[in-house]
């Protein structure tokens, strides 16, 4: 199995788990009369009940096909069906989606193209696209936190933990009288997310270091903040991140454009410079938030 095929398989399996669990949860919610909340706010009544069950069941079956890959034709069909169902869901359902859903669709479309297209160049491009989206995701997340006085002061960490939806009561009480620790946690999150470009461009070792850190970070997010879907959505991109790192290091050194050390140093320097500019251009005192953004797009 070539490197591309291995990476594609790994991505498909991880993605399949995430989508499969998501579909199971949706089926449970539809069937549980006592379930609270506003799930399945479909625009069209037909999609609310029976059709909704069918869509969830189709997603579950397709996810299992992608995980097990019993036959390549079946895998391709399952990928395409999942793409159609997920996009249809975006037309028919109201808010409640988050960044994990967006990443699911991005990876799903790219890995579907990966499965369908025979050309090795096309497969490489699909993997590089997933890796690039992951880099964009972490960079933007880190820089937006860096620009926030609430995150730099540690208020954001204790504030998020104070909520019932994303927080943990015991952890919040532990951090409540420890502002320095809250600040340290906030900065470690910022540093981790902003380090994606320097580490990935530092070669495979740097990429693996980032992936291990990311694994720990997202497990923490899943345990403390219940953001399970983010765990599956983001680790599904990690094989592509490592592939992108290896690709860049090999290609650049092959053509003698620049050594990987220079590239790593350059990206680290640019990241630090950019961080300094962002911190300097945003006020020290946090503004009072009117209503916070949860994530995802404002329609």
């Amino acid at each position, binding site marked *: 199995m070539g490197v591309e095929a291995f990476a594609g398989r790994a991505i498909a399996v991880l993605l399949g788990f995430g989508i499969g669990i998501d579909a199971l949860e949706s089926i449970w919610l539809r069937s549980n009369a006592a379930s609270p909340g506003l799930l399945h706010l479909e625009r069209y009544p037909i999609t609310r009940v029976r059709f909704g069950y069918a869509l969830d069941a189709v997603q579950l079956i397709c996810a299992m096909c992608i995980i097990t890959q019993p036959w390549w034709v079946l895998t391709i069909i399952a990928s395409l069906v999942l793409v159609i169902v997920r996009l249809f869901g975006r037309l028919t359902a109201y808010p409640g989606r988050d960044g994990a859903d967006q990443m699911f669709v991005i990876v799903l479309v790219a890995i579907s193209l990966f499965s369908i*297209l025979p050309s090795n160049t096309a497969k490489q491009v699909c993997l590089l696209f997933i890796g690039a989206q992951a880099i964009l995701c972490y960079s933007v997340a880190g820089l937006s936190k860096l620009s926030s006085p609430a995150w730099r002061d540690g208020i954001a960490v204790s504030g998020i933990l104070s909520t019932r*939806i994303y927080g943990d009561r015991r952890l919040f009480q532990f951090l409540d009288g420890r502002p320095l620790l809250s600040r340290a946690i906030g900065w470690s999150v910022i540093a981790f997310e902003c380090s994606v470009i320097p580490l990935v461009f530092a070669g495979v070792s740097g990429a693996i270091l980032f992936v291990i850190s990311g694994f720990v970070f997202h497990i923490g997010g899943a345990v403390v903040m219940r953001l399970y879907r983010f765990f599956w959505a983001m680790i599904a991109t990690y094989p592509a991140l490592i592939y992108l790192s290896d690709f860049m290091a090999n290609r650049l050194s092959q053509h003698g454009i620049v050594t990987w050390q220079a590239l790593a140093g350059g990206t680290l320097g640019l990241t630090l410079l950019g961080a300094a500019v962002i911190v300097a251009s945003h006020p020290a005192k946090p503004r009072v938030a009117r209503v916070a953004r949860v994530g995802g797009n404002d329609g």
Partner: protein
Amino acid sequence: MSLSSLVTVITVAVLVAWLLASTVCQIPKLRMAHWLRRHDRFDLLPSWAFFAPIPVTRDLDLWYRACRALGEEPTWHRFGRSNQQRFFLLWNPCLRSEQTVLELCARVLNIAFDDLSLDLRQVSWFQLLADRANRDSGGNGPADVQLKIAQSSWLTNVQESEPLLIGPQCGESGGA
């Protein structure tokens, strides 16, 4: 150019365009970003600024009361919060519905704060909340319930949570 090469070129072009559009959309001040999002019917352009720059630091609770009771003050009921069933990394079915409540309440509040004289019953997000609350209360229609959005956290007693918005009373069509 062979068919395979053509398909490869098209694939590369589409993915590069998607990546560029995703990058542009991370900068909300750009006019191009607004234009792209307005035409993004399938929500393919992601927003990667999680919990930033303004993090979520309070819960938004949705309360409702039915208007059917005559001669007595109907009591407020909080829209159900789950028992937080979860199993490590594998099972958390109620989080999505709670996120939906949070996001819809946040949207309604932002709209209400922008225009205090606005008739909230004309706002689609408010109608959704009212419709769902009405179904929970067994009412005859969304106008049969009055809504309240309050904020809370681990620090506050849920029953004493601070109301941020109280919707029009039953039968009224006025603003918040």
